[in-house]
């Protein structure tokens, strides 16, 4: 009879906060972790934020010690620019095929001096910065990104499009740039898998009445986060597109809620955080928070809301809302209790719903798990555990399972680890 091989390594998909928590916890239990991350950097979505609610703590200060720990942990095999292509097998013995894209920069040799950026002749919009600033074809997404090693965007790099160009390689004194690197196909054997692939935001362009993409100075949440960030495209200076300092703003909650059919749990709170952001840079700014139902559950969040109220912000409940450009400013027209009113502001910030990533259903298929009606990974039974799926050995954690705040994402990651260690007899 063939003996079934049992492996003890674990595959974690996604190096955001949930993935980092799971990896570090597994490592401290002496498990080997393969951490697969699609982008070139760790930290996920949270590193876009300057601060997090409700204690308004600096996001980098909070996350970077963990990222450093992760990068220096011998048990954790971090595979950036990698994606899971195939999963076969079952609990205790999964065989996973990973496609690891070439970075074209050697992770060992590169010391992160950024000397290769300047000479690169190609400039294009930086996706991490939500298109608000530019990057080169060889780039890191932002200052402070970890690992602090750039990647080459072969889609736009001249050399990879048939042109002769070695500008970056010539500028590098450490022989870190290697155009001959190839994509790799890796095969791993693991005991269990944790999918913690995070989320994206509803695209407000789908609702034309918000004016997003048409009207200048209507920003989506991530764009505003980058504008405010001290390592962002404006180094944290809040300016309108015409260069002037905004004097008033409208923050609109629940963008896409009706379309998605659920409350995303964190938008009211991050909208209040935006109020803090604005007031801290421009104290005399007039701010209107447009909301439908104020959703601020949790023992510390009401205090956060009270503090926001003290800043003099107007809280305006609405049933229907419209954003138009009229002359100099932006007009927000809204109805409340049948009455129609309007406010004119310099800028509008939209707080959109959290939704699964576009490639979630593809990954669900690969993992052999299902997704719910909204596209999030489906838990087997929330009354039993929200991290186990219908496939034993495959766990889900964080916003990939459903919209939630950081502490619940981190708890789910720890819970998934608990399940793995507990069921494999690591008791």
């Amino acid at each position: 009879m063939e003996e079934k091989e049992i492996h003890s390594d674990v595959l974690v998909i996604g190096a955001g906060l949930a993935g980092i928590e799971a990896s570090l916890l597994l490592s401290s239990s002496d498990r080997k972790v393969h951490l697969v991350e699609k982008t070139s950097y760790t930290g996920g979505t949270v590193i876009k934020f300057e601060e997090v609610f409700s204690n308004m703590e600096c996001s980098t200060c909070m996350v970077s010690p963990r990222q450093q720990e992760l990068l220096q942990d011998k048990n954790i095999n971090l595979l950036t620019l990698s994606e899971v292509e195939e999963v076969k097998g079952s609990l205790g013995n999964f065989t996973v095929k990973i496609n690891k894209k070439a970075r074209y920069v050697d992770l060992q040799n590169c010391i992160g001096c950024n000397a290769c950026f300047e000479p690169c002749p190609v400039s294009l919009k930086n996706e991490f910065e939500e298109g608000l600033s530019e990057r080169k074809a060889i780039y890191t997404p932002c200052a402070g990104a970890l690992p602090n090693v750039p990647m080459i965007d072969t889609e736009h790099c001249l050399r990879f499009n048939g042109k002769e160009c070695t500008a970056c390689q010539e500028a590098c004194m450490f022989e870190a740039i290697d155009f001959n690197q190839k994509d790799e196909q890796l095969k791993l054997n693991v005991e269990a898998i944790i999918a913690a692939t995070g989320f994206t935001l509803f695209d407000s362009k789908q609702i034309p009445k918000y004016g997003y993409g048409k009207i200048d100075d209507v920003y989506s949440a991530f764009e505003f986060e980058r504008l405010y960030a001290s390592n962002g495209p404006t180094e944290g200076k809040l300016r309108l597109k015409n260069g002037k300092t905004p004097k008033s703003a409208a923050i609109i909650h629940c963008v896409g809620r009706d379309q998605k059919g659920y409350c995303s749990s964190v938008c009211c709170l991050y909208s209040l955080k935006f109020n803090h952001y604005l007031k801290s840079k421009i104290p005399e700014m007039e701010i209107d928070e447009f909301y439908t139902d104020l959703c601020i559950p949790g023992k510390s969040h009401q205090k956060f809301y009270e503090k926001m109220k003290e800043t003099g912000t107007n809280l305006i409940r609405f049933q229907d809302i419209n954003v138009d450009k009229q002359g100099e400013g932006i007009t927000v027209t809204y109805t409340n209790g049948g009455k129609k009113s309007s406010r004119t502001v310099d800028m509008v910030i939209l707080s959109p719903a959290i939704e699964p990533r576009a490639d979630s259903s593809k990954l669900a298929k690969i993992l052999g798990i299902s997704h719910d009606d909204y596209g999030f990974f489906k838990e087997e039974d929330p009354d039993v555990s929200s991290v186990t799926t219908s496939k034993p050995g495959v766990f889900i954690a964080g916003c990939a399972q459903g919209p939630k705040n950081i502490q619940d994402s981190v708890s789910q990651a720890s819970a998934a680890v608990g399940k793995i260690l507990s069921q494999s007899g690591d008791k």
Partner: protein
Amino acid sequence: MERKIGVYICECGPNISEKIDIDKVIDAVSLPEDVAVVKRYKLLCSVDGKKFLEDEIKKQGLTHLVIAACSPKQHEKTFMEVCENAGINPYLYQLANIREQCAWVTDDKDEATKKAIRLVKAAIRRVRYHFPLEKKEIACNPDVLVIGGGVAGLEASLQLASSDRRVYLVEKTSSLGGMVDNFEKTFPNMQPGSNLIKQKILDVNKNENIKVFTDSIVEELLGFFGSFEVKVKAKEQDAFVEFDVGAVVLATGSSFFDPKQTPQYGYGTLDNVFTAIEFEKMNKSGKISLKNGKTPKNVAIVHCVGRNEKGYCSQICCMYSLKFARYLKEKIPDVNVFHFYSDMCIPGKSQQKFYDQTKGKHINFIRSSNIEVTKKGDNVQINYSDEDGKANNLPANMVILSPAITPTSDSSQLAELAGISQDDSGFFAEEHEKLNPISTSTEGIYIVGSAQGPKDIPDTLIQAEAATGKILSSLVPGRKIEPEVKVAHISESFCIGCKNCMSVCSYGTITFDEEKKVCVVNEVICRGCGNCVAACPSGAATLKHFTFKQLYQEILEAV
């Protein structure tokens, strides 16, 4: 043994070599007698570089190492490993940051060179005062104490227990099951509450690795992570049961705001005004009826009772209020239900569907404020201000109040027992709101479920499982705990027993020895911040690897 310091300056390609005159630095720092060698190297963190250093240390018989290169945040650990491999204690080395904080920020080469000289000299001065520090290993007890036999405690116990890890589950009432046992159904799937509990209780009682104490409380909890001493006392008995554990999970649940504190709702004064838990129990008994035995026709459910008083949203009340509407409709199909609410709080992917499906004929939602329940004949009347602020009223037979979730009445005692803090609302305080929501500042003590803050059952189960993850990965049977090395230490001879250090320590690391009348640092749980050192008036407290003498040496060069 004669001290021999080796100083190695990394060129870091052009990053350092072009911004700093390295040869000048070499000349400037070579003078002292104990500096045995000063060399430059292309890239010290490379494989060749590390080999070079190892060979140098052995060849030159170096006792101490100074590296001038990038930030310690980049490569402090790298060169510590080099030291270990070469046979010198990894703490007899200092890394001078002449890249991020010198070469990269100073345009003028002269200035950069002068600064680099200062930084390297400071490192040399400092390293003379370094002590070899050894990694400690502490044997730990892998067993766990779980306090509270509700859904969280049951879940944690089942996940943790195994043949080499005992779980002691202590429950203060006579039966396991906790709050959930009262619920006929749970949202959002409307499955029987007993489903969640019955099987878990059976499994716990069957499990020979879980020892259950009902009608018992924890009288005493001493010690620290890996080594707690527990005393449990049963209600009817005088004797204690004593045992040791390595970690503790507090799963003691929560209570409800008492609506008697808000007389405007008529609770306790008017008939047929019930609290949520009273209604749950009534519903579970099978019949929903008024005090006079009749079936209610119009039921008002008032949300947010006590919210203003407590100052937070309890997260689950809107959902369980919707659940109540469903209970009512199931048992009394033509009943009229009126929800009086201010904001509908239904976060999460499943919650809105539950709300949408609950809305329908005869379930009404009235956004309102200033609610007052008054007597109207044999029934009651809900007086309220509607959305526009206009006064209005609605007659009802029965009122169900959805009160805020509060800490239990014994949470202060429990917090004191465990040596953890409570937040402003009285719930147990987590170590870090975002990244460590179930740990506390006392290592080894975890808080889960509604004892940590109001939450629903799925989130409670997750926290119980998360505690499992934390404990299973840190308290491994047979494996030793390796605590932080750069910890505080208090000299017995210099300590004057003023306890200043104790008052500034956030982690309860320092205790007072009553016999010797001095303060003592528990090096197993010290985090190494050094606050106690700054607070000590007699200089008895030091922080290993950041002693006064070491920092003084750096100051001497900085000025």
